[in-house]
C-alpha cells in the first residue's frame, strides 16, 4: 500500500477539528447536525484505517455499527428540528431556551 496509516489519521484529525469548529460556532440546528456528521465520519475513517493496518476485522465491523447508529441519530435529529421549527418558527438554537430544565 502506498499510503501510510498516519496519512489517514491526519485527515481524520482535520475533519474532527472542522466538526468541533462547527459545533462551537454555528447556531443553526441543521448546521450543527452537519458538524456532528463530520465528527462521526472522522471517527469511522480512523476505525477503518486502523482495521486495515493492524489488520483486524473488528474495526470494519464497528464502523458498520457506527454508520447504522448515526443513521438513527440523524432521523431523530431531523424530526426534532421539524418539531422545534413548528413550535418556534425558527431553527436557531439560541431561541430554544425554554427547552432548558
Amino acid at each position, binding site marked *: *500500500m*502506498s*499510503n*501510510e*496509516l*498516519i*496519512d*489517514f*489519521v*491526519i*485527515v481524520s*484529525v*482535520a*475533519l*474532527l*477539528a*472542522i466538526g*468541533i*469548529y462547527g459545533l*462551537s*460556532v*454555528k*447556531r*443553526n440546528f*441543521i448546521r450543527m447536525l*452537519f458538524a456532528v*456528521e*463530520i465528527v462521526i*465520519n472522522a471517527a*469511522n*475513517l480512523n476505525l*477503518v*484505517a486502523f*482495521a*486495515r*493496518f*493492524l*489488520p483486524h*476485522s*473488528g474495526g*470494519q*465491523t464497528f*464502523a*458498520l*455499527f457506527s454508520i*447504522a*447508529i*448515526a*443513521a*438513527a441519530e*440523524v*432521523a*431523530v435529529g*431531523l*424530526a426534532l428540528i*421539524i418539531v422545534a*421549527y413548528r413550535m418556534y*418558527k*425558527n*431553527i436557531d438554537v439560541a431561541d430554544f431556551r425554554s427547552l432548558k430544565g
Partner: protein
Amino acid sequence: MVDSLFLGIAVLTIVSAIAALEMRSLVYGGIALMGTLGGIAGFFILLDSPFVALFQIAVYVGSIAVLILFTIMLVKRELIFQKKEDTKRRYAGIGLMLIVMISLGAIVFNSGISSITTEEPAVDYREIGEDFLIYYWPALVAMALVLAGSVTGAMILARRHDEVEDEQRTD
C-alpha cells in the same frame, strides 16, 4: 508517500466539509456535505474496505443526505439563507479548531504510528460476517431494535397534531 488519488480525495473531503459549514445557503451546504461523505467512502475504497464504502454510500450519500435536503426544504426560505454569527465566537471557534488540530497532530506524530505499514492482505468479507453473527450478534439485535425504535420515535415526533382533523374524527 501519499499518491495523487489520496491527495485529491483528501482535498475534496476537507474543502467540502468546510463548505458544508460555511456556505450561505443550507441547500448547497447539504450538497457539500454529500461531497464529504462521498470522499470518506473513497478513503474506505483506498483502505481495501469496499463493503464499508458501499454501506457508507447507501446509508449516508443515499438516504441521510436526501433526508437532510428534504428537511431543509420544509424550513422557511429566509431561514435557509440566514447566517447569524458572533464574530468573537467565530474567532474563538477558529482558535479552538487550531488548538485541537495542533495538539492532536503533535500526539499523532509523537505516538510512533508513522512507522506502522502493512503488506498483509485486506480483511475478508467472511471475517466481517463472522464478527456480526458469531461474536457481536447481541449488539446486532440491539442495533436493530434501536434503529426500529428511533425511526418510530422520529415519525411520532414529526407527526402533525391537527386539532380540526381530530374533531372531525370524533364526530
